[in-house]
Structure formats: C-alpha cells, structure tokens
C-alpha cells in the first residue's frame, strides 16, 4: 500500500476529521435532545406535515445504504472482478449509512425513550414493523459478508454471503419504499411503482456516495484510480441515473393520466412554488441532466473532476427529489370529500407550508456526521482501501468483463 508522504501529518489530519465528524454528531444529538424535551413544537412539522427534514435525511441515508452495497454485489454476485476489491468498503459504507439513517428516525420519534418498545412489540401488518426486522437483519448479514471478505479463513463463504446480502438489500429497499407505497390516504403515495423506484434510486445514490468516498480515500493516499475502472464506474452511474429518471417519469405520468390525481400533479410539477422548482431545477436539471452530460459527452467527461462532480450532483438531486416526494406529498391536502370545496379550523383543503427549523436540520446533519465518523474510523483501523492489481486484471481480461 502506498502510504501518505508524511505519516504524522496524515495522522493529525485523521484526528482532525474524526473530531469534526464527532462534533457534527454531538450537535445533532443535542438538537434531538432539545426536540425531545421541548416537544416537536420546536420543529416545523405539524399535524399535516408529520414527517419533515429529519426524514428526508434518514430516507436518503437508508436508501443509499442499501444501494452502496451494490458495488460489492456486482463483484460477489455478478462476478465482475474489478468490483471485488471494492466490496469491503462498500459493506462498511452500507453499515455506517444505515446506522446513521436509523439513528435519525429513532431520535425524531415523539417518544425516543421507548426504543425498547419498538423492538419488543411487533405488528405484522405494519410496513414499519417489518422494517424493524429488516434493518437488524441487514446489519447481521452484511456483518457476516464483511467477515467472509476480510478474514482469509472465511473467504470460501463469500459468495453465498454476498448473495444473501444482495437479496436482503432488495427486500430492505422494497420495505423502505413500501412505507410510502402502502399509504392509501395520501395522494402522493399508494403506488406499486414506488418500491421498484426506490430500488433503482438506491442503485444510483449508493454508487454516487461510493464514488465520492473512493475518490476521497484515493486522494488521501496519493493514489489515482485507473482510468478504465473510473470509466466503468461512471458509465454504470450514468445508466442508474437514467433508470431513476425513467421510473420518476412513469410515476408522474401514471398520476397525470388518472383524473383524480391531476390536481396533485399540477401542484407538484407546476404551481406548487418551491416543489416544482426543486423538482425541475434540483432533480431534473442539476441531479439528472447535468450529471448525464458530464458522464456521456466525451469533451465534458474528460475534464478533471467531472465524475466526482457528477456524483455530487446526483446526491444533490436525490435530496431535492426526496424533499419533493416526502414534504410535497404531505403539504397537499387530503381529499376527504372529493369534488367539494372544504374549509375548517384544521386547515382541511388548504395547501400547507413547511419550513424546517434549525434543530431538525441539525439532527439530519448529525446523521451524516454519524455515517462520516463511522466510515472514517473504520477505514483507519481496518483495510478497506480498494486496491487494484492492474497488471493481473489486464492479463486475465477482467478490466473489461
């Protein structure tokens, strides 16, 4: 392994980063404590928009967590050798991000002190309840998978472990998507396309996160990614980003076709102020079109940092899309009396507004802090850096398989 030029400076930088990540985490925890103590009255959430900014962060982390594991699956399950050396980092990121996402969800609960109740009471008809089983299962299976990858004695079992992890992660993302897909009451949700849409989103977002972390680690170690491998990964990202766009289009087009949904689509895509802006400007242009251009237009793709920039934009687009999906879906009023004009003291029939407050945002950022710190420490103490034996890969013809 090519070590950094100055081990002492490198060590100092590591501790600096770890302290920074820890600080963000602690601030997030303090914000959660404040919300817990004062009640959700200090957030922008209300009886109409019941899930807010913490959930945007948490769902991004959970979806991307299962997606980042895909890098490992491409190696172990689909036999692409280039991806095999990336499997350990992929597993670590998956665990760190899932832990972070769950921490946000748990800390945002009205009664976060009742975590033990959530673990010991199970309602089999609840999609949330199933997720409570799917998450620890993911930790266990990915943990075992990492063990088979990193311990030579366990190495013969990496294929079945990788397959199990791949299947489990598909279940997990289906579960996450179905939290929304099974909601009959709100117009934005209740669609079977949401679960597969979440799976394909996880492919794109997870890969984007992986490429950014990989880039940072390589820069840290004064290494460069082989252009051919870089090119393969960027093309894969492009495919996933395009696929997400396809699913988002199908979701909105089916809605547009149903007369009862047109008012909602009109709101989300045209008249809803911040939501159309985030959808078209944030998700479609910045999060989809620009990355696709950066990836597929040869002149742009050859620019320095274009892949990193594309991946970062994909993540930005993901946050925009989730904000539109989660918040926009809730501010639109429930149709209790279809076809009627309604008014009440409880704001029936009114489009709600939602402005996240500082504690909510800090809690969300605290989750990112958890994922960052866990990854930084993991990478430091164990061997997670993806290293390619280019000569060997080339002679065996694996660079292009």
């Amino acid at each position: 392994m090519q070590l950094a030029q100055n081990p002492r400076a490198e060590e100092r930088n590591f501790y600096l980063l770890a302290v920074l990540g820890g600080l963000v985490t602690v601030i997030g925890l303090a914000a959660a404590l404040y919300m817990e103590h004062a009640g959700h009255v200090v957030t922008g959430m209300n009886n109409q928009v019941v899930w807010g900014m913490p959930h945007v962060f948490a769902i991004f982390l959970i979806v991307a967590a299962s997606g980042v594991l895909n890098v490992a699956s491409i190696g172990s399950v689909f036999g692409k050798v280039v991806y095999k050396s990336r499997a350990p980092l992929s597993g670590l990121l998956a665990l760190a991000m899932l832990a972070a996402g769950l921490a946000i969800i748990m800390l945002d609960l009205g009664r976060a002190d009742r975590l033990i109740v959530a673990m010991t009471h199970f309602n089999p008809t609840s999609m949330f309840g199933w997720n409570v089983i799917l998450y620890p299962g993911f930790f266990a299976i990915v943990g075992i998978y990492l063990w088979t990858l990193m311990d030579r004695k366990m190495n013969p079992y990496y294929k079945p472990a990788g397959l199990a992890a791949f299947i489990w992660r598909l279940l997990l993302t289906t579960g996450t998507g179905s939290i929304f897909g099974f909601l009959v009451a709100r117009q934005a949700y209740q669609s079977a396309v949401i679960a597969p849409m979440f799976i394909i989103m996880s492919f794109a977002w997870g890969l984007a996160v992986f490429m950014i972390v990989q880039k940072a680690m390589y820069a840290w170690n004064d290494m460069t990614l082989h252009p051919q491998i870089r090119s393969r990964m960027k093309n894969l990202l492009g495919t996933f980003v395009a696929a997400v766009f396809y699913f988002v289009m199908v979701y909105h087009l089916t809605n547009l076709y149903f007369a009862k949904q047109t008012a909602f689509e009109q709101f989300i895509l045209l008249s809803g102020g911040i939501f159309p802006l985030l959808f078209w400007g944030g998700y479609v242009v910045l999060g989809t079109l620009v990355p696709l251009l950066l990836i597929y237009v040869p002149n742009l793709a050859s620019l320095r940092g274009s892949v990193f920039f594309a991946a970062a934009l994909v993540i930005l687009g993901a946050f925009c899309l989730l904000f539109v999906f989660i918040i926009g879906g809730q501010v639109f009023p429930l149709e209790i009396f279809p076809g009627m004009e309604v008014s009440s003291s409880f704001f029936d029939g009114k489009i709600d507004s939602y402005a996240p407050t500082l504690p909510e945002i800090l809690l969300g950022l605290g989750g990112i802090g958890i994922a960052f710190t866990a990854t930084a420490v993991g990478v430091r103490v164990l061997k997670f850096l993806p290293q390619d034996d280019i000569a060997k890969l080339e002679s065996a013809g694996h660079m292009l398989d």
Partner: protein
Amino acid sequence: MNEPQDKVQDSGRRGFIGAAAAAGAGLGVAALAPGLHLIEVAGATSATARAAGEPAPSTVRWGMLIDTAKCASGCDACVQACNTENGIVETVKDARQGSQWIRKIDLKDPKNGRTHSLPMMCQHCENPPCVDVCPTGASMKRADGIVLVDRHICIGCRYCMMACPYKARSFVHQPLDTQNPEVPRGIGCVESCTFCVQRVDKGMQPACVEACPEGAMLFGDLNDPNSGIAQRIAREATTQVRADLKLNVGVRYQGI
C-alpha cells in the same frame, strides 16, 4: 348573493327533515315510547354501564349517525364539549401543531353552490389503516369497535397520521398539564377521538352528542337491530365518507 333567502329556505328544510326524522324514529319504537326525542331513544338502547371487571363486548359496535341537515355552519358546540371533556387546551402558537379531536368542516359543491356543515372526527373504521400501519400495536381497535391509541406503547412515529384518510389524528407537540384525570394525553404521542370511551363505559353518551343543540348526532350500537341508530341506518339513506376505501366506518352521515 341572496344569502338571507337561502338561510330561510335552509332552516325551513332543516326543520322539516328534523321533524320527519324524529317522527320516523318515534315510529320505530312507537310501542315503547312514543314522542321521545331521538337522543333519548338512543340512550335507552345503549345507556347501561358495564359491570366492573367485564371487558368491552365484541357483540357491540359503537357508531354514530350525523344528520348534516341539522348541523349549522358556525356552530361548534360539539367541538367545545369535546375540548372540555377531554381536557384539550390550545397552548401552541401554530394552530397546525395543536390537537383537534373533532372539527367542523364546511363543504361547498362548486358545481351547484350547495353547502353543508358537519363535524369530522375519527371515523372508528372496522378496518382502520392506522391500526394496520402502527409498528408497535399502539393503534388498536377495542372489541366494541372503538379505535384508540395505547399511549403506553405509542412511540410517536406518526405513521398512523400518514395513513389516516380523515386527518383525524393529532400529535401532541408540547408538554401538557391540563389532562382530565380520566383522559390521559401526553407529549410525543398521537391521539384522536375516543368516542369518549370513559363516558361510554359508564353508559353515557359521547360529550359531543350530548352537547349538540340540534340533536344532529346520534350514538349507539350498530350491531343491535333495536338501537335507534341501527334502525335509522336501515331505513334512511346514509353515507360513509370515503366509502371507496371500504373501511366500513363507524360514523355515518346523512345529507351529503
């Protein structure tokens, strides 16, 4: 436009329907007690306190029938009664974060301008989406059909609020100290109309039903063919809100 005229017509119609309904109900139990008011008829079939130690019976299904023709826009006697009974005090600045177990909704049909006013609350579904989605089983349906939140195991995830088609649930956004001793409510938990379960168990009517000056709300056992509510539902046209969802709600409306 010509509002005064509308009002006169409206109250005239309302009065007529009310009288007709009362007469109809009177006929249904004529042999027992001719001339009784609706509310007393309902009381006669439901008002027995359950003996100590006995669970809520699964033979009963509590329900409510609301005659919107009698419900006046601007009247919120039911809401006030609910707040008093259940200790609901508005203390948050942003009303969107406050609890409303029952609210008055004004409806207008844009096609013909026809208006209605009605109280909306937990519809006590037979197949409640809130109970389906609750991860811990805190959202529950009692044997007698009353949908409740068990605050002892509610973790405050608000998934039930996402699932409810009636916006019937509120989340307690702040610490409370004005609870009725018989109606616990608290920070971080979700809550909704309980049909005044503490009163029903004593053989009384829900507070809103008792308070309605027009007698527009009728409470009783949907499963008992002799109850006032079951007889009226058997005889007259009633509506379930969002009937397309097939939740088989316990609260029925007339006149919408």
